[in-house]
């Protein structure tokens, strides 16, 4: 798992949990606020209902007052001749009623019931002259008379479905005043009926909005749950509006969805920002260090940048130091691995490596490769006569002389110097990036042979050793490293066979002399 993935897997659940908790708290807070607001609104709406009802109550009271205190009503009450009462007096009550007609299409009616419950007068301001006091209104009147209630009001629904606010008052027959208890049996009932249209419209509107019925009761009602409003419309009329649970559920669902969406989107955004920051300031430098170390491992870079002084900086510095030390050790090992311990120049391994490289370059750049195979003549005699120590000293001196000759000739010919290596025993090899007929190779051969003119001197002692040199080149003589080595080896044997301290170019050898196999089985 990468550092980024690890950071993500740590950050994601924590941030998500945090926002889910915050979203949940916000949801519950908002829910409480919505309920509070809705309750306030509900209270206000039922208050409007009460206010509207109060308007109608007030109208009813005024109508009752005006009719009760009108002269016509008093005359009407005191008149026993029903014909005369109807013909001459009833119109006066109608006038009293009309004097308070609200003239806003509010239906009002006035009915007078005798003690036996009989309707003796009815007038209204409606558009249907053939209507009369409905059955419920008459029943209400009979109940008031039976109960001997001095005044009473109620909200009833008539059989035709219309609501009426009824206000009744018992009056003494002779005086139109409120009757004393003992005379209530003979009292006449004056009843006003009003169609509380505005109240009903409010009520219907509320019932439609909240999809529930507004309950009314003559006895006090208590709120029904946290979202329920109760109002006292009249002294003996209470109303309760309790929206169903489903009323706010839709809104709560919406809030919940918004909260969840917010939590999720904020989580995603926060995680995104955090991941960017983590990547930039934490995992990025580590990744960069990893990339640089990888670069070094794949040899695409050589050193490590140290980013600042933090933990990652220190880590980078340590890694760089470690790398440097390892590199040095590796170089040392490499050097030891590729160096001939006797002469201090490259060994056969080194030679093979360089030959591979030169061949590769020959393939890509066309630069020819020429190998000089040098074998010391009479070296065994030196070892046998002067001892191995002298032999080793001779080998070391020859190696240095070869390198010197190589470098000087290259400098003189303005060519790349090439390399020199000890193959084994008394065998050396030189490899240059030039053709065999070039002045550089020719000069080099000459200067090497010149080293052995009259033997080879080491520390004042002259040893009778000479050099036989075989020269072969690629691509002229060989196309593989093995073949080039064989060709050079073959040429060297040819030189050795020609009289020592001489050179033989493989390209100059007769065709039959070349079998494609090394004279020695190397």
């Amino acid at each position, binding site marked *: 798992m990468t550092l980024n993935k690890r950071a993500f897997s740590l950050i994601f659940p924590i941030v998500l949990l945090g926002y889910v908790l915050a979203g949940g708290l916000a949801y519950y807070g908002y829910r409480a606020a919505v309920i509070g607001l809705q309750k306030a609104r509900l209270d206000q709406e039922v208050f409007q209902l009460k206010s509207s009802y109060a308007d109608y109550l007030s109208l009813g009271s005024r109508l009752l007052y005006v009719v009760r205190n009108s002269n016509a009503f008093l005359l009407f009450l005191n008149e026993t*001749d029903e014909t005369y009462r109807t013909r001459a007096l009833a119109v006066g009550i109608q006038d009293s009623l009309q004097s308070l007609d609200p003239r806003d299409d509010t239906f009002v009616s006035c009915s007078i019931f005798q003690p036996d419950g009989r309707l003796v007068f009815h007038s209204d301001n409606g558009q249907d002259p053939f209507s009369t006091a409905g059955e419920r209104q008459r029943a209400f009147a009979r109940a008031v008379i039976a109960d001997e209630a001095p005044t009473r009001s109620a909200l009833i629904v008539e059989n035709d479905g219309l609501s009426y606010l009824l206000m009744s008052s018992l009056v003494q027959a002779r005086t139109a005043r409120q009757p004393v208890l003992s005379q209530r049996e003979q009292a006449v009932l004056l009843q006003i009926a009003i169609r509380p249209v505005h109240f009903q419209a409010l009520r219907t509107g509320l019932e439609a909005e909240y999809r529930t019925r507004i309950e009314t009761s003559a006895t006090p009602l208590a709120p029904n749950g946290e979202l329920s409003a109760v109002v006292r419309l009249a002294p003996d009329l209470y109303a309760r509006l309790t929206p169903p649970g489903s009323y706010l559920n839709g809104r709560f669902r919406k809030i919940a969805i918004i909260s969840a969406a917010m939590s999720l989107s904020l989580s995603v955004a926060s995680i995104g920002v955090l991941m960017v920051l983590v990547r930039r300031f934490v995992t990025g430098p580590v990744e960069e260090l990893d990339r640089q170390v990888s670069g070094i491992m794949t040899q695409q870079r050589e050193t490590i940048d140290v980013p600042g002084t933090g933990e990652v900086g220190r880590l980078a510095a340590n890694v760089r130091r470690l790398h440097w030390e390892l590199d040095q050790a590796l170089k040392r090992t490499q050097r030891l691995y590729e160096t001939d311990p006797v002469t201090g120049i490259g060994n056969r391994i080194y030679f093979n490596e360089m030959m591979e490289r030169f061949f590769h370059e020959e393939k890509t750049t066309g630069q020819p490769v020429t190998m000089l195979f040098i074998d010391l003549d009479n070296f065994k005699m030196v070892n046998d006569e002067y001892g191995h120590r002298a032999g080793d000293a001779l080998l070391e001196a020859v190696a240095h002389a070869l390198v010197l000759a190589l470098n000087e000739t290259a400098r003189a010919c303005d060519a790349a110097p090439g390399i020199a290596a000890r193959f084994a025993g008394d065998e050396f090899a030189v490899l240059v990036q030039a053709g065999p007929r070039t002045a550089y190779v020719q000069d080099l051969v000459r200067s090497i042979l010149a080293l052995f003119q009259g033997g080879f001197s080491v520390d004042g002692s002259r040893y009778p050793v000479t050099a036989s040199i075989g020269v072969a080149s690629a691509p002229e003589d060989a196309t593989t490293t093995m073949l080039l080595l064989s060709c050079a080896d073959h040429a060297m044997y040819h030189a050795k066979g020609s009289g020592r301290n001489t050179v033989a170019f493989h390209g100059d050898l007769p065709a039959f002399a070349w079998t494609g196999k090394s004279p020695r089985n190397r």
Partner: protein
Amino acid sequence: MWRSICLLVGLLAFSYAPGARAVSLNLLIWEWDLDPGVAKAWADTSGTELNQIIFDNGERRDLLIATADAPIDMAVIDSGHIDALGQRGLLVDQGNYPLPPEAQSEARWRSMCGRYGVPYIWGGTGIVYRTDRVTTPPASWADLLRPAPALAGHIAMTDDEEEILAAALGFLGRPMYTGDTEDLKQAFAVLKAQVPAVLTYSLSVTAQQEKSFHDRIFMGLANSGDQRTLNMTSDGARPWRFVTPRDGAMLWVDCLAVLSRSRQPELAERFVAFLARPDNAARNAIFLQQPTTNLHAAALLPQAMRDDPQIYPPAGIPVTYRKPVPTDSLPLRRRILSALAVIHDAQ
């Protein structure tokens, strides 16, 4: 009608004014229903003042008569209403004050006024219209109740439910004084259909004097004689005419009654006898442009007046004499009128 009550209250206050030093009689009467010359002659003859208390609705007049403390000595009461008030003991029995033969009215009017009233003037219920606004003169109730589109918003119906329903029932060919609810339902339907064309449910002569209706009434339900009052209040022009509908005329007689509670019953009776004198009756009829109930007086009228179809209904038109509507149907008639007014206001 509320307006008329206010008017009455104002006049009552006036009648109580401290300036009224001389003996006076209070007469409850329609507007412009007594020749000022006759009134002056009475004042000059009797040396007493005559206060006219004006009403414009028969039912409110009855209520005033029934109200014990209204200071009224005499009243003009139509034959349809007088019996109920008389039988209640509110009116003086005129049998106690016989008039000389020449002052007595025709028997048909005397019988309609009964014991409690002396016939004062008679007339018919019909249609008034403006000749300068209505090109085709109305001839039947249909012309009023199903008016031409041009008359929409220019019709005045009275606030008398008995007259309104009599017109609608006459239009339907039903008895004008029916107590049958079905007849009244049909009549209501006719009147309801007429509502959009109606300008006001009040007496033409009263409405004409109101600024908001002045010059806007072209046709109306009215009584003979109303054309005279309307012409008097029409800025000098005399465009108004009265027509008795050919499909049925309703004839009425107004009676002069003395209230039992009058403090000067003898003086009031003297006034009744003064008005009943043929010369005064004729003079008054000429002023009112209405037929007199007294044949001796009728003989004194100009021939042109006796031939005027606006004053004497043309022969051949079916006639119904106004009488009390059945008591049971009265509240319904009142509510029909009230409903018409409500429907009208709602428009």
